[in-house]
């Protein structure tokens, strides 16, 4: 990791937090009320989008498989709130949350899930390949870890073009054992690329518990293999995620090079469409649901008097009608024309 001067000197009012032994500036208070509410709204959007997706699954309307992000909303939302619209992200097979947080249009997303011509990929990609390149989302990826190299390449563009942008590369705990994780973090480190590797540790890779797939307690300790900084955070606390990513985004922009952030979270649903969940107990799921990221954050906004419980309900209601609209749009949209199947292979 390259030494860079710390983020702007603390003014008198500034507070520093101790997160996992790191001194991280508390930048959440800098956000205006609307921005803070926006974070809540995004989390609701993700959750209700996924509720709707789940309904589609139950009703047999999704042709392929789907991986729901329910329970992990704070991770994508907090991280992406901390970067700019021109910054890049790469996503995963469990990508709806990242995509929504990066500002995707819900109608177009939902149309893609139903395989419609109006979808982000004209029905060619589906859940596992939704991308929104214009908005800086370089795509979900059906290959676990598949976007790690791509994200690193985007960071190289940022560095070579000196455009001041950075990249967040999202991936799961399971992906942290892929070979390209290793090569990419090493390459990003020797080249000081502006990229945040954000490992969403949701306790399982499909059925395999992290404690069986790793012989280390903290995935972020892999920082020692690459000479970079690393930190493990509460991925269900959207403000902690926000503060951490703000901090490292700023350092990345100053040339510090990559960082490995491990965000501890949990998926409430099964791995995919079909999963009997024999590998975990109902109690475990319940325990995690008690730390629900949305409830926690809404509670914070209410306790800080930024919103009332009624505002909270109202926001959720608004989101639900957005989703209903997306549902309508998706269902009303036409299917692609089979004659176009060989289009879009080549530019």
């Amino acid at each position: 990791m390259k030494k860079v001067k710390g983020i702007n000197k603390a003014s008198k009012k500034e507070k520093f937090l101790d997160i996992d032994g790191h001194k991280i500036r508390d930048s959440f208070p800098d956000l205006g009320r609307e921005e803070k509410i926006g974070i809540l709204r995004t989390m609701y959007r993700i959750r209700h989008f996924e509720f709707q997706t789940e309904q589609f699954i139950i009703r047999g309307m999704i042709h392929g498989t789907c991986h729901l992000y329910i329970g992990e909303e704070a991770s994508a939302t907090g991280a992406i709130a901390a970067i700019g619209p021109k910054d890049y992200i790469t996503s995963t097979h469990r990508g709806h949350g990242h995509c929504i947080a990066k500002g995707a249009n819900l109608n177009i997303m939902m149309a893609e899930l139903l395989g419609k011509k109006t979808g982000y990929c004209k029905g060619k990609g589906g859940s596992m390949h939704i991308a929104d390149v214009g908005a800086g989302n370089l795509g979900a990826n059906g290959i676990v870890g598949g976007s790690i190299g791509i994200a690193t390449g985007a960071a190289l563009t940022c560095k070579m073009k000196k455009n001041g942008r950075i990249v967040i590369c999202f991936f799961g705990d399971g992906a942290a054992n892929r070979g390209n994780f290793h090569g990419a973090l090493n390459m990003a480190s020797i080249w000081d690329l502006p990229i945040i590797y954000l490992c969403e540790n949701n306790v399982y890779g499909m059925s395999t518990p992290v404690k069986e797939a790793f012989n280390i307690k903290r995935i972020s300790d892999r920082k020692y293999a690459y000479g970079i900084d690393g930190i493990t955070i509460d991925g269900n606390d959207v403000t902690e995620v926000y503060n951490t990513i703000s901090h490292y985004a700023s350092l990345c922009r100053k040339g510090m090079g990559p960082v490995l952030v491990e965000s501890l979270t949990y998926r409430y649903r099964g791995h995919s469409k079909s999963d009997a969940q024999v590998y975990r107990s109902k109690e475990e799921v319940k325990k995690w649901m008690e730390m629900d990221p949305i409830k926690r954050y809404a509670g914070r906004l209410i306790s800080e008097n930024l919103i009332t419980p009624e505002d909270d309900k109202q926001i959720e209601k608004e989101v639900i009608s957005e989703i209903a609209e997306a549902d309508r749009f998706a269902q009303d949209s036409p299917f692609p024309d089979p004659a176009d199947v060989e289009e879009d292979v080549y530019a």
Partner: protein
Amino acid sequence: MREITYLEAIREALQQKMREDDSVYLIGEDIAEYGGAFGVTVGMLEEFGKERIRNTPISEEVIIGVAAGSAMTGMRPVAEIMFSDFITIAMDDIANQAAKIRYMFGGKARVPIVIRTAGGGGTGAAGQHSQSLEALLAHIPGLKVVMPSCPYDAKGLLLASINDDNPVVFIEHKLLYKNKKYIQHVPGEMYEIPLGKGDIKRKGKDLTIVATSFMVQKSLDAAEDLKKEYNMDCEVVDLRTLRPLDIDLILKSVNKTGKLACVEEAPVFGGFMGEVASQVTEKGFDMLDAPIIRIAGRNCPVPYSLVLENEMIPGVERIKSSIKKMAGLSQGKE
């Protein structure tokens, strides 16, 4: 007579062989508690324990490298690559290590591994979970490539693959696993179907269809229809193994029918049927009354949307119309 699914036949072969031979073990992702992404190994952890049902991190190349190294030192691993698309990640360990070790060492090592993997589309899983990549594997000297089309073959071919002293890639088809339409009587005891022998799945005299995996089933359906509708009698040859290829069986059939249609699921360009067509042209040119046709996937990745996916992958209707056109029975659009 008990009838079982393709999935059950595969599981039974694994179980029986593992009971017989301690050196056989399974290695792969989510094969233990979860029983594999498609449920093939459900219940096997309970019977054989963690040591022999080795659940791994997500590390396809290491799964194959480890399998190869343990095979060279006396084990007989059956490695699972969850989707055949992920073969690409392990391609060095498959093509440059496992396949070549014996030859490069002058015949002084054996690498008896089986790589089980689920291929094919039709599940809406899109471009990275639906491919038929057998052409990439069949081109590599040192590998054998097996693609069973039904429960009976699945069991016998898998046992032959495990007993084989070479690396064998055993490609199963997702749509066959649990499909009740294809259940079949499968003997309870262990038996082997020799690698390198094809099988005539339907006798006929008018035209030869050569097919692999799920396309054998679709070809059989097409043949039935063609018989009913046009009294055309197609012979359906199931390759069973792509490498070694049973070219003699194909030539014998073409010699009788004079016409050959090759059916595969992969995109046609550069697909394996190019090899079949070329060998038949080389060795059976004078037997042919008409150009060989290939009925195969469109030249694009497998798309997500059902309407597109159905267009990309050859279905019974496309097989029929292509054959009708070839046989001069219709102008049917290919």
